Structure formats: C-alpha cells, structure tokens
C-alpha cells in the first residue's frame, strides 16, 4: 500500500508534463476521428458514431474487468473463449426453456441470470487456480481458454448454436433499441465503466489491487488478504465477460467456435493503450475505455477507406496501437529513463 500511494502521488509532482500520460490516449482517439472525418464526412454521422460506441461496448466491458486483473499483476487469456462458451450455454438454456416458460421476458432473464452465474463461476475458477493452486495466471487461463473454446465447439457440434427465433424477438431490443438516443449496450458500458472507476479509485479494494500489483510480498506483510483480492479480480473479470455476452447474444442470436476469437488480446491491448502497466501496480479505467474506443475506431476507419490494401489492415492496426502507447509516454521526451 505504501508503495502504491507513493507511486501515484509522487509521479505527477515530479514531472509537470505528466499530463501526457492521461491525455495521450485521448489525443490518439481525437487524431483518429479527424482522420476518419477527412476520409469521409459520414464518419461523424450519428449512425456511425452509435455503431462505433455499441461495438466498443463488448471489448470495453471486458477490458474494464481486465484492468483489475492486470493492475493486480495477473492476466486473463480466457475471456474470449469464456464469452463464447457462456453465449453457447445461454442459448442452449433459453432454447430449452421455451417449452416450460415460453418465449417471453422470463426466459431471457433466465438466460441472463445463468450467464452471470457462469461468468462469476468461471472467474472464480481462474482465480482459485491462480491463488490456491499457485499456478501462473498465464498458464491457468491458457488452459481454461482451450477448455472453453472446445466446449463451445462441442456444444455446437462444430457448427453454430442459434437462438430460438421467437426468443430473439423478445431479446433483440437489448442490442438494437436505445434509451435517450444511446443504444442499451452503450448504457451498460457506461454503467460498468463508472462502477469500475469507483471500485478502482475510491475503495480499499482498488488500492489493494494496486498494492498487490506493485509488490505482492509487501502487500502480504501489510495484512492484505492477497489471495482473496486476487481471486476477486478474476471474479470481476468473469462478471464483466458475462455482461458483455448478455449484450452480444441478441446481436446475431448465435454462438459458434469463431465467437470471441482474440477478444482477450483486444481487451489486453485496450488496457495497455489506456495507460495501465502490463506488469501491474498502476491501473486506469478511463484510459481503458479510451483504449477500447481507439481499437474499434481503427477497424471502422479501415472499413471507411480503400486507400490501404486489405492485406495490410493488421499492419495499420499494429502501428496505431504502438503509436498510441508511445504518445502517452512523456519521459522519453524529457530524455529521462524511468
């Protein structure tokens, strides 16, 4: 705890230009938007911006959870597979519930409830194996990643699980309808972001995460229940995955082995672009949200132009990610090593 508060408190004092760290991602996003607008004014049309925000919601919500895990010095590679598996089980449960409770709201609520339970359970498994099982988080979640991915392939018989058409009718508004001009997924994203911010910056739990991430041994000596806090970060991650899945399923009403592929890397990228330190000890929810927006905007802009060969999309994405992270490093400008 001591080291953590030192870290965050002294850094801004030492360098006046440290603002760069905070506004770096925002600057990158702004730059992307200007480029997007110059390519095609339709970029800033209401429809496109709404699409962008809604799309960012998936990765964004998952990345909020990842911020906790990474801040506490862990990593979770299983989130993409977990989302696919939860989506698959949700669809199976809802399809099976048609005969007994019909195609109305209760069925959808049952599906959502199961998703939350599964998310929390899956997160707890990752957490418990990491802390009680004393296995590296990288290995644990690499293992569960494979397990969840193959489970969804198995459930779908290699094909695609499709939601009953009538339930889709009931569930569809959760993705497609809006409240005060913003689609529901965006509201969920905002809600999760606010809760995440409060949890990380305004509670003892958030400070414990930071403390464990910067020095686990010291945190242990400071009477922090390290195992419990670390497990909880994975549970939060699982919960976030469940939320993302709940708003993902009504979009196309299906889940397959290709659902959520590489989401884990996108979530981690969003977190890192946002300024959170990969080795733990320093986390920023606001940055994570900007990071998620940046990632989605890159894809959007690439679809808006035919200037760049389709084959180079990955190159552009990689370059922009690296530049975005460079932008938030102020120390190299001052010529000071860290």
């Amino acid at each position, binding site marked *: 705890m001591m080291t953590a508060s030192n870290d965050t408190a002294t850094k801004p004092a030492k360098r006046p230009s440290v603002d760069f760290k905070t506004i770096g991602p925002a600057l990158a996003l702004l730059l992307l938007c200007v480029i997007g607008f110059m390519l095609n004014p339709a970029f800033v049309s209401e429809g496109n911006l709404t699409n962008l925000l809604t799309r960012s919601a998936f990765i964004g919500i998952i990345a909020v959870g990842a911020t906790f895990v990474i801040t506490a010095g862990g990593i979770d590679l299983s989130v993409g597979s977990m989302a696919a598996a939860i989506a698959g089980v949700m669809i199976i449960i809802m399809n099976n519930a048609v005969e007994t409770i019909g195609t109305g709201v209760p069925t959808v609520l049952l599906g959502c409830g199961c998703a939350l339970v599964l998310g929390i359970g899956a997160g707890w498994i990752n957490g418990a194996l990491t802390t009680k099982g004393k296995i590296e988080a990288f290995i644990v979640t690499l293992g569960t990643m494979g397990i969840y991915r193959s489970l969804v392939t198995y459930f779908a018989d290699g094909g*695609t699980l499709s939601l009953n058409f009538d339930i889709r009718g009931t569930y569809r508004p959760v993705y497609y309808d809006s409240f005060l001009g913003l689609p529901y997924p965006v509201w969920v994203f905002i809600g999760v972001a606010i809760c995440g911010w409060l949890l990380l910056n305004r509670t003892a739990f958030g400070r414990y995460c930071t403390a464990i991430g910067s020095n686990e041994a010291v945190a242990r000596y400071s009477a922090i229940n390290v195992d419990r806090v670390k497990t909880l970060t994975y549970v939060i991650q699982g919960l976030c995955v469940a939320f993302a899945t709940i708003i993902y399923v009504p979009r196309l009403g299906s889940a397959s082995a*290709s659902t959520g592929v590489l989401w884990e890397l996108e979530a981690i990228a969003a977190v890192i672009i946002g300024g959170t330190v990969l080795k733990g000890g320093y986390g920023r929810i606001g940055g994570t949200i900007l990071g998620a927006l940046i990632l989605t905007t890159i894809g959007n802009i690439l679809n808006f132009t035919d200037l760049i060969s*389709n084959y180079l999309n990955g190159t552009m994405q990689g370059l922009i990610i690296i530049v975005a992270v460079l932008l938030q490093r102020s120390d190299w400008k001052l010529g000071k090593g860290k």
Partner: protein
Amino acid sequence: MLMKKALGAVAAVGLLAFAGTALAQDKIKIGVSYPTPTHAWAAGMNWHAEQAEKRLEELYPDVDLILVNSPDPEAQASALEDLVSVHQIDALVVLPFESEPLTDPVLNVKKSGAWITVVDRGLSQPGIEDLYVAGNNPELGRVSAQYMKGRLKDGDNIVVLRGIPTVIDNERFDAFMEEIEGSGINVLDHKHANWNRDDGFEVMQDFLSRFPDIDAVWAQDDDIAIGVVAALKQAGRDGDGMFVVGGAGMKEIIKGIMDGETLIPVDVLYPPAMIATAMDATVQAFKSNGPVAGRYILGATLITPENAESYYFPDSPF
C-alpha cells in the same frame, strides 16, 4: 493337463488371430482424413462424411472406412502415417489442411501402394492423386456475378464482403470481378469479413454508413450473409429492394430460399457434402467396372426456390 490346456489356448488364440488378419486383409480399407470441424462448413463436412461411412459400409460389407480428423497440418501428417502403418489402408481420401505441408505425407501414402483421392484443396505437386474431387471456387464467383448481372442494370452499385485472405478467396473474388467487368455495375468497395457473422455485421454497418446507395451485396459466404442481413435490418435498409448473395449451402439459408425469402433470394453451392462424393467415387474405384481416376469438379450450382429442396439437409449442423 495344465500344459495341454495352455497349448490349446495358445493354438486357439493363434487361430483366431490368423482368422482376424485374414478377415482384415479381405476388407478394402479406406482412410478418410480431414480437418477437425471447428467451423460450420467443416462441421457439415464431418456430418456428411459420417453419413457416407454408414451408407457405404452397409452397401458394401467388405469396405471399411476409417474417419480421422486432425486439428492442424502437423497432426494430419501424423494421422496419415498412422493410417498406413496401423491400418494398412488400400486407399486414402484426404482433404488437406494446407497444400504445401501435406504434399510429402500424401506422397508417402502413395508409395505404400494406396489409391489417393484428394478433396477440395489440391496438393502442391501434380500427379500424386488418382482422383481429385473439388468444389469450384472460380465458378462460385462467376455464378454469383452472373446472377447480379441478371438482376441489376447499368449504373447500379454493389459492395463485396470477402473471406479470409487466402487463395480460395482470391479465386472467388477474381472470377467475380472478371465476370462483372463491363456490365456497368459499380463495385463500390470490397473488404474482408473473414467468413464470419460478426465481421460481416460490422463491415456491412460501415458500408451502409459510407454508401447511401447500395443495390446489392455479394457476401461470398452464408455466414457473412447472415451478419449482412442483421446490419441491413438494423439500419432499416432491408426494405428498399437490396438483395444479398451468399455461398456454400447453409441449411438455414436454403430453408429461407425454399420459403421465398427476398433478402437472400438465391445461394451458390460450395457443398460440404463433397467429401461424401469423394468417398463414393473412391469406393467405386474398387467396385466399378468403369474407370474412376481423373478430376471430378462439382458445379457451383445456383440454388433457387425451384431446386432448393435437393440441397436441404435439416439434420446436418450446417
């Protein structure tokens, strides 16, 4: 006494074993190797392979089909070795994961004296296979373009959603562009949607924001087409006469065509059932009195409400 019994037992076991090998040698053993079904089309292929196995083994009691699937090219190479060394196959039906890395392993099977049937993706060296069975990727592009030309007029706009950047994708796309050229139909842009619903949805959303006037979409694949339709409905542009052409032969799409769906009025066949065709033909290589070796290219048939029923397999996962 005990000795006698033991001797008897040994003799019996020996006799049984001998009978076993004799029996096994009588059977025509055909190995069928293909990628593990991890996406819808491959799951359909797996289903059709299993159906064909049941049907052929019932029809010909002396034919033994051994189905093996592998998760990557490396594993498939090992699986081929096992088929030769453990099962001593007389013939191999193989859908290679990738052409280059599997050419040598298949050549080794060939050296064991087995008949070789290659499905879908060719090998990188000619003359190894006795029989080649494949769908027709350029034809898929061409047939799609011909349908577009029949429905659209000079000055109409279309967008194209491609698959994963691969040779297959290029073959389809190049043939499509060649056929559409000179028709006066504008191809506004083309992007990769990776044969995937989610990407199809997002790429189409962006196309819709970018282009106010689109008359038709070539989605190239049924999964992409499903994402495209969701994006059209979301933007409320599904009612203005726009139509989508996919490809492959997914059962949901074919059902829609049978029901007179207007948004996806037709489909272009790239059948996962081609593995069954290959298995049939391979058995015929042993059973028929006619020649079988050569190339067997399946047509990229245009599926319309009139003929849809013959391509509809409700039990298949695809």
